[in-house]
């Protein structure tokens, strides 16, 4: 599998232009220079000296020092520009760390066990496998990949494949910023693969007359078209009111931040740069020299910036000699800072979600049926920390109607409405170890669902009555379909696996005109962990 398309997709949306190796572009150095420029040495020498000492204290500017060092230490043997080198570096790291990513179908899919499409989508990519169908009459096993556009760049940044840049900082080359991730996170996608299409199976109406004609029952089987993609979907969040200041949000944040950030902060505390550098006798001497150099620059900001740049270059030259693995430490620190900012942003995003209004477009390609497209509005309303209500409204239209069925079938296939009430059993939040859900679904079948059948290849036990010899299309009944579902989703702590178990009662399905009970089980897995294998080369 070539990586070029991935790069082509990812790069344009995560790039930010500009300037490694210029300290004034890094926030804490810029603030330090601001502080220094705001004090008048002649009037308040104490404050001036304190501001100057603070500016030259590596312990207060370690991240900026790492950014600066990464730019300066980056080799440039071919005399290439920084942007070109960064792109090549990213490409090389991706090429060198092959991984293939893979997340259930939305409501009403061929093998969907959910009746309601949820508001939020997996933070990165998830894979789910589910067996069954709720409103369709044909069971299937679907493997669904779900994710949002932010998943790939954030995973790449977390693993130091792409650099993370603060919103206020411009850098040379390619980097992922919080604002870009927040936009990308609103757009999500899903693809379902039907794993059971080679071995078609069908459940159907028992041999009771449907037409009242008294015709002989005729066994019929469906013939799958071996299209393995059974569903594709795209979703955009129109409205996602973020609350990051309320007491409820802050309480949740305080309760979860320690656990959520444990690995990222652990990696950050582990990287030692300040300790060994500040232990060097040359460090104190450097501070004195740098103080004199900056003092000499006076009130000229450009001169102060130049003096700081030159001083940091001196420090790097010294430290490189004394700490031979400095480059490695800088790489580790860059990776740790990337991961810290990405994880911190994802925690806030996961907790800050308030009512979400989303629009989803799905192309459904069920086995033995005509492809149809669904246009769905999704409203996700958190009621309490542990309880939320999700409501969907949708219409489904056939992509096209076969000529032979054109007289009897309209393109407007059906309208759907569904709701789901979720309650987390964990003490902290809905993201706790288990969730119980109650859902209701109503579908108005406006026109017949079309089933393609193969009279020449019947399956024992499947019979249609009143079907003319040689018939290839069966028209199902229109009318009202409703169902109710109870579901328990288990999410073992510390694991990325989620196991939904559900029981569903429906008054009928599209094909079977009688009440039905179904039990479903599924498994989903958050595949973000795959990216942990992507290490900087």
């Amino acid at each position: 599998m070539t990586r070029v398309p991935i790069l082509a997709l990812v790069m344009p949306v995560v790039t930010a232009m500009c300037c490694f190796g210029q300290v004034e572009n890094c926030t804490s150095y810029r603030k330090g220079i601001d502080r220094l420029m705001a004090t008048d040495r002649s009037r308040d020498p104490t404050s001036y000296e304190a501001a100057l000492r603070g500016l030259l204290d590596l312990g207060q500017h370690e991240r900026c020092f790492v950014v600066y060092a990464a730019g300066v230490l980056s080799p440039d043997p071919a005399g290439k520009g920084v942007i070109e080198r960064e792109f090549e570096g990213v490409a090389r790291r991706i090429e060198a760390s092959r991984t293939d990513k893979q997340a259930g179908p939305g409501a009403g899919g061929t093998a969907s066990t959910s009746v309601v499409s949820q508001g939020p989508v997996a933070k990165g990519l998830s894979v789910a496998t589910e067996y069954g169908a709720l409103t369709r009459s044909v069971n299937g096993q679907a493997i669904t990949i779900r994710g949002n556009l932010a998943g790939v760049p954030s995973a790449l940044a977390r693993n130091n494949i792409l650099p993370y840049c603060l919103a206020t900082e411009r850098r040379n080359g390619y980097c992922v910023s919080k604002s870009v991730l927040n936009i990308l996170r609103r757009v999500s996608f899903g693809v379902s693969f039907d794993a059971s299409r080679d071995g078609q199976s069908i459940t159907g109406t028992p041999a009771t007359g449907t037409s009242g004609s008294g015709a002989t029952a005729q066994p019929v089987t469906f013939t799958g078209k071996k299209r393995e993609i059974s569903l594709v979907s795209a979703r955009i969040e129109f409205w996602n009111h973020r609350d990051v200041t309320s007491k409820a949000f802050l309480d949740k944040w305080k309760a979860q931040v320690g656990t959520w950030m444990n690995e990222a902060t652990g990696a950050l505390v582990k990287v030692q740069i300040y300790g060994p550098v500040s232990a060097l006798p040359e460090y104190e001497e450097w501070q004195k020299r740098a103080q004199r150099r900056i003092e000499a620059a006076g009130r000229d900001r450009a001169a102060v910036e130049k003096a700081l740049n030159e001083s940091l270059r001196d420090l790097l030259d010294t430290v490189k000699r004394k700490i031979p693995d400095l480059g490695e430490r800088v790489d580790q620190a860059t990776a740790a800072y990337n991961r810290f900012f990405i994880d911190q942003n994802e925690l806030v995003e996961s907790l800050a979600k308030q009512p979400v209004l989303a629009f989803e477009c799905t192309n459904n390609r069920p086995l033995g049926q005509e492809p149809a497209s669904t246009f769905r509005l999704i409203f996700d309303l958190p009621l309490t920390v542990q309880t939320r209500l999700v409501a969907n409204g949708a219409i489904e239209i056939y992509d096209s109607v076969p000529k032979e069925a054109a007289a009897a079938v309209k393109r407007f296939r059906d309208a759907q409405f569904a709701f789901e009430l979720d309650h987390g059993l964990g003490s902290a939040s809905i993201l706790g170890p288990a969730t119980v859900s109650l859902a209701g679904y109503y579908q108005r079948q406006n026109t017949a669902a079309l089933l393609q059948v193969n009279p020449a290849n019947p399956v024992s036990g499947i019979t249609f009555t009143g079907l003319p010899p040689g018939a290839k299309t069966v028209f199902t009944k229109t009318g009202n379909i409703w169902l109710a579902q109870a579901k328990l989703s288990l999410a073992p702590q510390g694991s990325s696996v989620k196991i939904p178990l559900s029981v569903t009662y429906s008054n009928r399905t599209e094909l079977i005109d009688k009440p039905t009970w179904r039990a479903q089980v599924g498994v989903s897995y958050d595949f973000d962990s795959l990216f942990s294998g992507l290490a900087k080369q």
Partner: protein
Amino acid sequence: MACHLRERPHSTDFDAIVGDKVTLIAEDHIGNVMIAKAKYGDTDLVPDGTAVSRLDFTVAAGSVVMVLIFVFSAQEAGEGALREDCGGGSTQLLRDVSGDEPKVSFRINGKAAA
């Protein structure tokens, strides 16, 4: 009560008396600020998987590095301060902290009591 950490003249390090018990607190300015990791020498002061807004440690002999990792609910825009709780309701400012520099380090020179 008096503060235990004293800023060294012409330095950003601190002096303290060996054996003194020091309490550090994370003060919120913009959003919430908490300490997720704190390493004093080889000692972890914050239990794994937790974040705290105050912590205690006992001053050790010699020049020992204190490394603190702060987490911010306002992310990069977050701001706060690291202060020493000097008792009796008084505190002293040790460092301003902000979301763009989540790691703060300094040295504490532990000296024997005179």
